[in-house]
């Protein structure tokens, strides 16, 4: 009888439209935040932070972005990696050019640049959709990869072609660079996820979110009731690319420290797409769950055999990973197209009635 809504009456529309209308949900979320901000830094070791939590958090930001574009607005995009690269390289150029500028501000500005690029590559979406749009976004992906590879200005003429995050501080703490501790980087990434998830949730329950879903569900009818398709789609591309750009900057500054274009290639685009399909298209929670899943499975695959005494070579586990991901995509699309987030919702429904079966 834990998860009962009885007695929780909404007396204003404001209460009805809250993000977490059920009190138990609110309590859980607060508890989760406390655990994430306070308990985890005390308990987690370096490996967990560096190899699991930080990449999971950063992937969540990218997954949120792609979910807004593909899950909510229905625009297929395979250019996620490219937009992340824009964020990373922009942040690098900006901070090397103006070292005094606050690093968090630089992340946001890089996001804006990525948003502008996303807007440009989103223009075809007025006339094309589905597979055709996917091809146009592939153009973005491959072109941007080539750009950051070939135009040496982007990596400050460094002969190795890689870009390295210089050390930067925020509020007196070393946030990036070799001195920055995993804990600090984790907390910064966590904060980005919390803020960006909050913003995403606000967007999807407002007018802009509804117009995205309208365009996704019935774009001709949407235009007839007064929605402007180009503005709506371009906004989706811009916001989504903003998220992906920031995620890319975070990859460089908070996670890898040093990247080359390979870190943002077409496989990344597919990976983020898998996150939102498995996690749940059109669901904010789904993006985060999907990111967690896709981050954990490869780690699990590399470590689990060792734990039970089997030695598995690296490329074998990569192949198994591909098989599992591909298989899971098919499984979810067939069995539960709305992904893990829907399974979670079903679980909550069951919990509502627990311990009664119906």
């Amino acid at each position: 009888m834990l998860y009962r809504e009885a007695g929780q009456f909404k007396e204003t529309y404001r209460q009805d439209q809250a993000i977490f209308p059920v009190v138990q949900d609110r309590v859980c979320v607060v508890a989760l935040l406390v655990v994430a901000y306070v308990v985890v830094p005390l308990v987690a070791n370096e490996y967990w932070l560096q190899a699991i939590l930080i990449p999971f958090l950063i992937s969540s930001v990218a997954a949120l972005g792609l979910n807004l574009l593909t899950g909510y607005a229905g625009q297929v995009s395979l250019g996620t990696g490219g937009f992340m690269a824009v964020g990373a390289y922009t942040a690098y150029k900006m901070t090397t050019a103006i070292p005094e500028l606050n690093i968090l501000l630089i992340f946001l500005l890089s996001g804006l640049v990525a948003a502008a690029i996303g807007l440009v590559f989103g223009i075809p979406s007025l006339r094309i959709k589905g597979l055709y749009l996917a091809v146009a976004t592939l153009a973005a992906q491959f072109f941007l990869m080539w750009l950051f590879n070939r135009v040496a200005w982007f990596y400050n003429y460094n002969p190795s072609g890689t870009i390295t995050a210089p050390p930067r501080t925020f509020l007196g703490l070393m946030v990036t660079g070799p001195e920055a501790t995993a804990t600090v980087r984790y907390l910064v990434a966590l904060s980005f996820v919390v803020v960006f998830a909050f913003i995403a949730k606000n967007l999807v329950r407002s007018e802009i979110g509804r117009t995205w879903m309208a365009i996704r569900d019935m774009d001709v009818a949407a235009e007839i009731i007064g929605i402007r398709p180009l503005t709506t789609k371009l906004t989706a591309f811009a916001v989504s690319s903003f998220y992906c750009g920031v995620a890319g900057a975070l990859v460089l500054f908070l996670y890898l420290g040093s990247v080359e274009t390979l870190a943002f290639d077409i496989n990344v685009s597919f990976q983020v797409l898998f996150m939102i399909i498995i996690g749940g298209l059109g669901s904010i929670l789904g993006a985060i769950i999907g990111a967690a899943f896709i981050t954990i499975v490869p780690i699990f695959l590399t470590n689990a055999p060792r734990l039970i005494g089997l030695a598995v070579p690296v490329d074998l586990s990569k192949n198994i990973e591909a098989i599992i991901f591909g298989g899971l995509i098919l499984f979810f699309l067939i069995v539960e197209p709305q992904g893990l987030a829907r399974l979670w919702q079903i679980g909550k429904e069951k919990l509502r009635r627990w311990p009664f079966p119906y």
Partner: protein
Amino acid sequence: MAIGSSLAVLVAPFADMVASPIFFAEVVVGGLMAGVMYAMVALGFVLIFKASGVFNFAQGVMVLFAALTLVGLMEHGLPVWLALVITTAVMIVLAFAIERVVLRPLVNQPPFTLLMATIGLTFFLEGLGELVWGSNVKKLNLGIPEAPVDVGGMLLNQFDLLAAVTAAILVAVLAFLSQKTSLGRALRAVADDHQAATAVGIPLQTIWVTVWSVAGIVALVGGIMWGAKSGVQFSLSLIALKALPVLILGGLTSIPGAIVGGLIIGVGEKIAEVYWGPLVGGAIENWFAYMLAMVFLLFRPQGLFGEEIIERV
């Protein structure tokens, strides 16, 4: 001043083309040959789309999978003809499996879902293929002479010529099947309207298995050609991604369009790379096809030969 010199830079290659026409012709022919390869992949795609309305993102990986299986069998000592037979059988079994496991459960889902499903299938098949046969580059030796042949002053590869002829035959056969036989008619009916087709008694499942098998065989032919030319390896599926721009140009539903689109992309890419590539650091080939397709999409979304897409409200 800067505008003038950049214009000169853009225009200079045209002068080069005129200055050495034989070289230009060789580049064009080289592009045509590459285009034939792309067209092979696109062809399988068109077949499946025409018959089931499914965007088979996995067509490229089917090429890789077929080639891997063939080469893997040959490496185990099987003679070429036996390996071919077995690989063909494998592709047919694959078609059955895909129809049963992927297509049937998703039959009424929107195209978006089917696209995602074929993306999942791509990764699955890639992992499986490399798991079973290993991921190092394999050479596919078909016993075709390497010596180039002189045609009108240009030096052409015998293999390329053979590939072009094979492609032409394949297209002719497929076009004939599509237009003149009852099977072709049934395929076109299914492509138009699944429910109506079943209403007149066309067995949907059989059609789908047939189409995916044929696409699998086309993939095998493509895989053989690609593999013999550049070795069987993972990057084959990346090249196969390039089939998408080909389809955009040619039209998703047109068999001749796949060829024409392939040739245009092949030639365009080669010319861009050879003449303008050195000016900007090379590797234009990575994105030129996609950019070309994107520009095309803005002006003629249905491609050169495709059907116009009309939406009803």
